[in-house]
């Protein structure tokens, strides 16, 4: 079953006086199946964040189609957009985006509270998720009292607590050291094994090699895609490196 379908997606940024138009995405098409773990790679400025933000309905596309769980996101009314986002999507950011005035527990509960879920259910979910992410001991702490890796785990907890159809992550390990990154990526794999669909933007080949499929974006288009299939992480790593080399050389 297709969770996400993107067709001919185009995004042109117009600066304030319409003088400089910047085409971030020209024509992007791909789809994501239920249960997949997809990584998106590409040079800086290639439009990865733009793509993710459009899928997350944080940004409006210029043209093209984005279907999420069978629904055209362009057709969702503004008033329903935040509810839709809350119910169907989880978002993990590079800089965590936790709120300092909420405890770890409350940060994770935020989407559930906004969705007005019953308290018993919230409590049950927060315990489950915290156990999965190994942050049960930190629940009562505040974001400024925990480490970066722990913050990112909290952010992941917040993203998956509502069991979203799709988990979006924009460079989730960008602000972490390699050891903490490794743990987060293993977590992603683990979550993916439980059936969670993940779409992750990353710069790191190491991170991408944990995914089941990698999409390469260049010049506003999907340049290539490779599958991991039965390969080991290391073998896949090598393959991604090769593809990247081709991509940069081909550009010159």
């Amino acid at each position, binding site marked *: 079953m297709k969770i996400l379908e993107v067709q001919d997606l185009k995004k042109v940024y117009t600066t304030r006086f319409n003088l400089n138009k910047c085409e971030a995405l020209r024509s992007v098409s791909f789809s994501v199946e239920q249960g997949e773990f997809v990584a998106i790679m590409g040079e800086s400025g290639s439009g990865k964040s733009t793509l993710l933000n459009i899928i997350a309905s944080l*940004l409006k596309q210029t043209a093209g189609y984005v279907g999420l769980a069978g629904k055209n996101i362009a057709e969702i009314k503004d008033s329903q957009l935040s509810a839709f986002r809350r119910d169907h999507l989880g978002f993990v950011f590079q800089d965590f*985006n936790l709120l300092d005035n909420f405890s770890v527990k409350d940060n994770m509960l*935020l*989407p559930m*509270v906004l969705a*007005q879920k019953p*308290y018993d259910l919230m409590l049950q979910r927060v315990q489950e998720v915290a156990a999965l992410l190994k942050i049960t001991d930190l629940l009562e702490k505040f974001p400024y009292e925990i480490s970066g890796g722990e913050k990112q785990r909290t952010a992941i907890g917040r993203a998956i607590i509502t069991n979203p159809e799709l988990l979006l992550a924009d460079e989730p390990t960008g602000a972490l050291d390699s050891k903490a990154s490794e743990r987060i990526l293993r977590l992603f794999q683990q979550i993916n094994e439980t059936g969670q669909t993940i779409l992750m933007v990353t710069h790191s080949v190491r991170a991408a090699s944990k995914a089941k499929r990698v999409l390469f974006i260049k010049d506003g288009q999907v340049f290539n895609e490779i599958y991991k299939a039965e390969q080991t992480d290391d073998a896949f790593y090598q393959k991604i490196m090769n593809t990247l080399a081709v991509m940069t050389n081909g550009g010159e």
Partner: protein
Amino acid sequence: MKGNFFYVQLAKSNIKRNERNFIPFWLSCMIVVAFFFNMLNLKQIVEHSEDVYGNTTVASFLGFGGVIVGILAAIFVFYANSFLMKNRKKELGLYGILGLEKRHVALMLLIENLFIAGSSIISGLLLGMAFGKLLFLAMAKLIQYAVNMPFTIYTGPIWWTIAVFAVLFLLVLVFNLITMHLTEPVELLKSKNHGEKQPRFLRLTAMAGFFCIGAGYYIAITTTNPLKAILMFFFAVLLVIVGTHYLFTAGSVVFLKMLKKNQKFYYRPTNFISTSSLIYRMRKNATGLANICVLSCMVIVTVSTTATVYGSMEKALDKRFPRDYQMEWTLREEKDRLKIYQSLLGKYADQAGVTITDEYSTRSLGFMTMPINDVLVRDANEFNTMDAMGLDGFLWVNVYPAQDFSVIFEEEIDISLAKDEVIVSENPVVNNRQILNIAGKEYRIKKIVPMKEIKGLEEANVLDDLLQIVVFVADIEEVFELQKQDQENPHASTPEESLYFNIKGNKENIATFDRLVMATRNNENEDERLRLDSKEWNRAEYYGFTGGLYFIGIFLGSLFLLLTVLIIYFKQMSEGEEDRERFQILMKVGLSHAEAKKVIHKQLVMMFFLPLVTAIIHVTVARFIIERLLLVGFGGNYGLLTPYLALTIVIFAVIYFTVYLWTSKTYYQIVNSGNGTH
């Protein structure tokens, strides 16, 4: 040289970039400078205008006002500066990380400081001079100076203003440099995101806050002795200020945490966001809120009290002078001076072509006492009024012959008392008693009468019913008898006779009469000690006094108001900056625009109206003690305090609300700026 120019450029661009922070800071410094300068300049003007009745009073008020403005200016400039620095910490941290040495940053701060100080002092002085004439005219109108008092700008106040504010800005700079020096760049970078450290002993502090406010309220309501009220007022004010700070910083957090404990309540979308963000806010900015509350109280109290004093001036004058003229002299058993003076006045009246009307006279012996074992000791010379302020036992006694009863109470009743009988006014000292002992002589209390407005009793202006007692004895011989009882005492007072009268006639004739009686005025003959006074002669002094007070009240009131507005503005600015990030995150997670607006609104309303409502409660309670205070020196508030207070509260609330609308608009703008989320 070239290097320094670089820092000048940097400082300039910093100020430009931080406009939203710098402009209100600069504006408020400018306004404070203008107020300070005018206070000093007006003082000079009044001091230079000689032979104005009561000009020393007005001048000393203005001097006092100048000191207050100076202190407020210092507090305020530091406060505004701390806001400014808080918002700029990130920027300064960044410079450090980008490789600017601390001394370079210091140089940059110095240049910025010089620029802000120079421009705000100069523009403040210009603004002050521009509005000086207007303020001067307002003051002249209030104090009704008919005489020539030209508006002049003196150089003294200019130099004083420059000196005071230069020192102030220097202190601010030193403060900023020290803070910068003590903080590591990394800390500076992060500092904004940290919630303030949780205060310890939260509950205890909250209870202390409650206790302080309660104690302040208790004092304000129960202090009945008006002389004590002066001292107790300041004590109560201090308690309430401290209590408000504690209550806002700790009490609010304790309360919100209680809400948070109630999970059914807490885990609802708007409650969830607003409760936790209010806790966060209160921890960081409760001091600001408490300051707003205290300043609001000051505005309301200052303006309404001075307005009451000014408004009730004529009535106070009427009370002090039941007739147009009054004449007092020492009463001697062997000599009836009343007849002599009456005929003298009659002669003057004929000469001037006016008629004397509504004439009456009283005779009395007045003395201060501290009842010892219910004996009204005569002229206990160990104490004076100052000592009495702190003492409950102090009492002013006035002894009249019974014939004067009807004159004083304006009741035509014939009373005849036996030699050992007295009629006394209501007072705790005589409650449930049959015997009154005056200086060793015992009297039977025949009747206790309520103390009404007693005409012509000068002390009635100063004292409350509780503090004075009127005693009627059989006749004038009995009064002399009482005096003789204490003849060895050198401080002993002597009985006095007072004559009160109005005159009728045209303006010119009255002026002639005035000139004639003036000659008789204040005959300080040891034996006679004649004093003649007129309502008209006192009016100028009253106007100078109450008008000066009212002017200072409005002057300081508007300064307090301006500072309140600016503090609110600063608060909104810095909170808006912080909330922008928070709401962006919340919206990414799934808070809708409408919900966000609702939460922001709820939070704004809370933060805004908490200080206002608290301030209104404070001043409502303060009314009790202010009423007592007004009794001292002004003879009461003549029913004006309550309406004036209510009016001031309404006007203040309207202004406050306008400020709310204005700043919340900017707040929404800040929170929504750069918010591409739909």
